[in-house]
């Protein structure tokens, strides 16, 4: 395997792992409060829907869109996903948002599930089924999207799928073994890394894809070609650290003012 193959495998594995940990928390909360039958049925239904979505989206992206349009569409979506992750990571690191905690998320989900009314459809609890289905599908779509786009760009969708699938399998096994949310996973750090990665590739591809609007409809070339990706990654990392430092100083100043006033 080349260095690029390892990079593809690692990035799809990490992105998938983080999303699967969140999905596991939701499914476990439903399983414990609403029963395993509803949680498992919801998860299986979501996986079937995800398989159909993967086939349809993969075929459409690979066959229907010209390269520049593909880069513009997937780049824009990756940029939005990436900046959402990066925003949360910056706010958490600066102390403006509480760290994502799977135990707290689990407690919130179980409390909501316990207070929801009981309604069964075909012997399956409707609330547990719907929440599990929605949770797994929503987290899964992001994984599928990352795997397809990174795989298509590297011209190695099978390897990207191995990365995503291995992470899903690992989380499933860990969930079955420990039977509780995976709160020991350094989720916030992983999300920061994935946010930087998605933002970098999103910036690169979306701007390349603007070439669809010029005559010839060919992608725009970045100065330095693919080396621009490393420059963008370094740039986003440095800028995010500066923002964290700046916002953190603001938080410290406010604390000092409050203490002095008290």
């Amino acid at each position, binding site marked *: 395997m080349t260095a690029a193959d390892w990079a593809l495998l690692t990035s799809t594995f990490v992105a998938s792992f983080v999303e699967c940990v969140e999905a596991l928390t939701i499914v476990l909360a439903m399983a414990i409060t609403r029963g395993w039958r509803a949680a498992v049925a919801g998860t299986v239904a979501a996986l079937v829907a995800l398989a159909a979505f993967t086939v349809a989206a993969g075929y459409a992206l690979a066959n229907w869109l010209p390269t520049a349009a593909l880069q513009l569409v997937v780049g824009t979506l990756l940029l939005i996903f990436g*900046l959402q992750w990066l*925003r949360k990571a910056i706010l958490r690191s600066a102390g*403006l948002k509480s760290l994502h905690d799977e135990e707290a998320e689990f407690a919130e989900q179980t409390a909501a599930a316990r207070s929801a009314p009981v309604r069964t459809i075909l012997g399956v609890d409707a609330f547990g089924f719907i929440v599990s289905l929605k949770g797994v599908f929503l987290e899964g779509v992001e994984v599928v999207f990352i795997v397809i786009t990174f795989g298509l760009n590297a011209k190695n969708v099978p390897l990207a799928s191995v990365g995503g699938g291995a992470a899903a399998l690992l989380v499933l096994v860990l969930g079955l073994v420990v039977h509780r949310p995976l709160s020991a996973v350094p989720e916030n750090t992983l999300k920061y890394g994935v946010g930087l990665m998605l933002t970098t590739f999103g910036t690169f591809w979306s*701007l390349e894809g603007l070439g669809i*609007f*010029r005559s010839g409809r060919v992608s725009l070339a*970045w*100065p330095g070609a693919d080396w621009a990706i490393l420059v963008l990654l370094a740039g*986003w990392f440095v800028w995010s650290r500066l923002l964290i430092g700046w*916002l953190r100083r603001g938080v410290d100043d406010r604390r000092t003012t409050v203490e002095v006033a008290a």
Partner: protein
Amino acid sequence: MNAVRAVGEFFFELIIGDDPKIAAAVVLALGVALLALVLGASATVVTTVGAVAVVVAFTASLLLGTRR
């Protein structure tokens, strides 16, 4: 109709998420880069201006969200 609405809500939640300012910032930044392209700028200028526009728009959306 409920199914269409559910699909719409799903994609809204997926793409817009809990902060619509991020999607707006991305659209705005790409719009700036597209404007440069339409005005005849070279690929180097369009990609550079676009990257800077993304950084500026994201920073503005972040700071707007933290303003008290």
